């Protein structure tokens, strides 16, 4: 391999990084593509970790995003078990720490390092305290749940905590779901749909402790025996899963070069509408906070669909910056965000932006309380739509509502038409 071939480095080898690497090659980049992953595994998928992997339905190999033949077809300079420790956007030098430090000169970099789970103060290193971000995390918890009759305390009632609680309960364990929110996923779904989800979890036998912060993990001989809530209650448990959110993995981007280049690392990697953080530096996936040109606000989305779409967009725009005459103009990244969640036999699907809504309207379209549809928005416009248990054709039709937001008087009528169609 000639040393003169230009190099693009993609840092982060999960869904966003893989989509970027694949996009670069497919769009015609014939230079080196260095794909850096801190885990020793080939790229794998994370949504199944809190579902099929935790439940035991899937063996870990099933989470592979591509097989080895597909990966070798991309002719990657694949560096797994390797951490990026620094990037200087002015010099365009990337420092890696695999078998000793390596400094690579890059034509461009896509940052797709994702997020790392938050924990609780003092909880690190306690046996029986888990997080759920990597395949190894999932396999450790799965081994514990393979023994019947465990008591699991799930701390954090966001989507990850709610899914893990559902899986553990379905396996027959004694499950407590503790969260500062008043219902599971309240911050995203709102009080009414969240309340419905709370009923579903209760009906399946999960004990909910809502509106409660956890102040500490109780231990005996270094092993977790439960969690202590703000009101002093102790929830006894054999295992504790911390699902209390995450922090963007941007430490490697900090430094004088980033400061001089004006890189914004205040909440993830700040990017413009082209997913660019600085000349030659693009962000994708959970780590990237970019300006959505249609919604006219910055978003940082920790959902699977965005990871792939943004990885591909970042690759395309980086190439367009490097060689516009060959790869064309950069294009603003303006997706319709999508997420789904599986809990018990319910499938939640949502398009657009739900979190932080100023106004929510819930419609019960077919009188089944477990199948609501809801609209989320600002004071003026509905910008998000959610449905539970909706057949695929109708669920897809919700996308149009989020793609072209309507004013509130129009939105419920559009939703009714979309779902009836």
């Amino acid at each position, binding site marked *: 391999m000639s040393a003169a071939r230009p190099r693009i480095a993609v840092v982060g080898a999960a869904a966003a990084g893989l989509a970027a690497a*694949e996009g670069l090659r497919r769009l015609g980049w014939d230079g080196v593509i260095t794909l850096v992953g801190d885990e020793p595994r080939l790229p794998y*998928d994370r949504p199944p970790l809190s579902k099929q992997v935790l439940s035991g339905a899937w063996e870990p190999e099933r989470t592979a995003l591509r097989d080895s033949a*597909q990966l070798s077809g991309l002719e990657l300079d694949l560096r797994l078990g390797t951490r990026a420790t620094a990037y200087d956007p002015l010099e365009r030098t990337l420092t890696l720490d695999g078998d000793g430090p390596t400094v690579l000169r890059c034509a461009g970099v896509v940052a797709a390092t994702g997020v790392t789970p938050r924990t609780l103060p003092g909880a690190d290193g306690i046996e029986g305290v888990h997080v759920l971000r990597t395949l190894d995390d999932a396999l450790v918890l799965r081994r514990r749940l393979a023994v019947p009759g465990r008591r699991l305390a799930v701390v954090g009632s966001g989507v990850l905590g709610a899914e893990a609680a559902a899986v553990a309960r379905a396996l027959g364990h004694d499950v407590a779901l503790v969260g500062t929110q008043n219902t599971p996923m309240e911050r995203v779904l709102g009080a009414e749909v969240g309340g419905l989800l709370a009923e579903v979890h209760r009906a399946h036998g999960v004990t909910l402790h809502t509106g409660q912060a956890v102040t500490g993990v109780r231990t005996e001989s270094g092993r977790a025996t439960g969690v202590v809530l703000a009101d002093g209650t102790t929830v006894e448990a054999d295992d504790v899963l911390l699902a209390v959110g995450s922090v963007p993995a941007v430490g490697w981007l900090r430094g004088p070069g980033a400061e001089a280049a004006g890189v914004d690392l205040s909440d993830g990697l700040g990017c413009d509408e082209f997913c660019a953080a600085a000349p030659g530096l693009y962000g994708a996936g959970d780590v990237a906070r970019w300006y959505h040109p249609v919604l006219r606000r910055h978003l940082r989305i920790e959902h*699977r*669909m965005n990871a*792939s779409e943004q990885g591909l967009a970042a690759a395309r725009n980086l190439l367009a910056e490097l060689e516009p005459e060959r790869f064309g103009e950069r294009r603003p990244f303006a997706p319709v965000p999508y997420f789904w969640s599986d809990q018990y036999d319910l499938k939640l699907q949502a398009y657009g932006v739900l979190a932080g809504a100023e106004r929510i309207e819930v419609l019960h379209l077919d009188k089944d309380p477990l199948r609501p549809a809801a609209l989320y928005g600002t004071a003026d416009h509905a910008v998000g739509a959610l449905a539970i248990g909706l057949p*695929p054709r109708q*669920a897809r039709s919700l996308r149009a509502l989020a793609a072209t937001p309507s004013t509130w008087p129009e939105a419920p009528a559009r939703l009714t038409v979309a779902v009836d169609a």
Partner: protein
Amino acid sequence: MQITIDEAKCCGAGQCVLVAPEVFDQRDEDGIVVLLNASPDAAQHAAVREAATICPAAAIQVRE
């Protein structure tokens, strides 16, 4: 181009149907992907590659 799908991986997001509606559909009962054409003609190839890349369950395999 030869497409294969892994139904057990499919999460029913329907993004493939949005990107390449002549190649993919979804079952009404559970939203699982239905392959309408396993070897589409060249006009569909770009859309199919994009569908495979953005599929949030990596359930679409493309061989060329």
